[in-house]
């Protein structure tokens, strides 16, 4: 028997009864007080004029926590890109790789048409989701991924070469790094005014307007740029893996 299986069995002997016991001793589902959540809701609604509490918590109450998430994203994307590029260099490669005996089918016109129609709409939707972070469900994290997937539709519809021309690598680097920097620098505004790091120092504005929430739209924008750039870069570098070097190289 493999050692990791033995270890897991030994752990399961203790953990399974403990987990079962705990599941039956937990508070009643949906019927216990939520003091922290209620306090956060009241604060966000009346002092920050935010209508989406989740964005309020992310970019104000727990802004420093989100800074940590942002750095984690930066580190993960940076690590992945570095490992991928370390193996094959930075430049783009010309030819689509294929397994011998399995030709690559031509892109059908229906796919091209659909992608041309959907890519701008998806991009617009992503921007909408980003901009309305503090009002309706959405925010920089979700909107960023939607924007990145709109960029991916360009690859699906127009092919690799057009995609690389449209999205130069340095642009994505700037988005990713710039977004994270914007978030961190916006935090310094509080320090400059003699308040805490990442304190919400801007006026809260009118509830329900695009500029309500003080610093929240700015921090949200930083996250959106970093997530969109980061995921687009991940897609780019991953799909680069399906390319082969030019004939005669290597």
């Amino acid at each position: 028997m493999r050692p990791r299986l033995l270890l897991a069995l030994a752990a399961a002997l203790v953990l399974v009864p403990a987990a079962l016991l705990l599941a039956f001793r937990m508070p009643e589902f949906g019927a216990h007080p939520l003091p922290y959540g209620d306090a956060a809701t009241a604060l966000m609604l009346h002092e920050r004029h935010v209508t989406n509490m989740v964005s309020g918590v992310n970019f104000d109450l727990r802004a420093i926590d989100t800074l940590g998430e942002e750095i984690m994203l930066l580190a993960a994307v940076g690590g992945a890109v570095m490992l991928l590029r370390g193996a094959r260099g930075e430049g783009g490669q010309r030819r689509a790789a294929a397994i011998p005996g399995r030709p690559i089918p031509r892109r059908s016109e229906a796919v091209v048409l659909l992608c041309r129609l959907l890519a701008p709409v998806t991009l617009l939707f992503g921007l909408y989701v980003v901009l309305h972070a503090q009002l309706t469900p959405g925010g920089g994290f979700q909107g960023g991924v939607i924007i990145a997937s709109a960029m991916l539709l360009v690859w699906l519809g127009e092919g690799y070469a057009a995609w690389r021309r449209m999205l130069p690598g340095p642009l994505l680097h700037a988005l990713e790094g710039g977004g994270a920097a914007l978030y961190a620098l916006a935090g310094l505004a509080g320090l400059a005014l003699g308040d805490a790091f990442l304190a919400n120092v801007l006026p809260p504005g009118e509830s329900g307007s695009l500029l309500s929430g003080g610093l929240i739209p700015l921090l949200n924008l930083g996250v959106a740029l970093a997530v969109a750039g980061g995921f687009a870069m991940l897609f780019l570098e991953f799909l680069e893996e399906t390319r082969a070097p030019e004939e005669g190289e290597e």
Partner: protein
Amino acid sequence: MSPLPWLVAAWLFGIGLYGIVTSRNYLHLIGCLSVVQSATYVLLLSAGFRWGAGPPIFQDQPPGSLVVDPVVQALVLTDIVVGAAVTALLLVLVLQVHKRRGTVDPDALRPLDR
């Protein structure tokens, strides 16, 4: 019926861990890891739920109406996106292992086995 959410969370954690332990393919292992991760989402969101309460969005309901806990939702939301980036990093590590050692089976890898 009340402990069902907690039992589902525990089940997802356990079955994912079982998959990780018995996996013979790193790609499959990463998929199991995401199941373990989803156990935490189910646990957190269930803990923040409240019967008869609406979503924590006040765009279309009057201030003062009963809503569920927004804090756990914020935790889950950021973790889903960052978790995807970490999954990408893990996939790249698998590709590296495959390029260098020619295998994706955890058992075929031994330290310093050349």
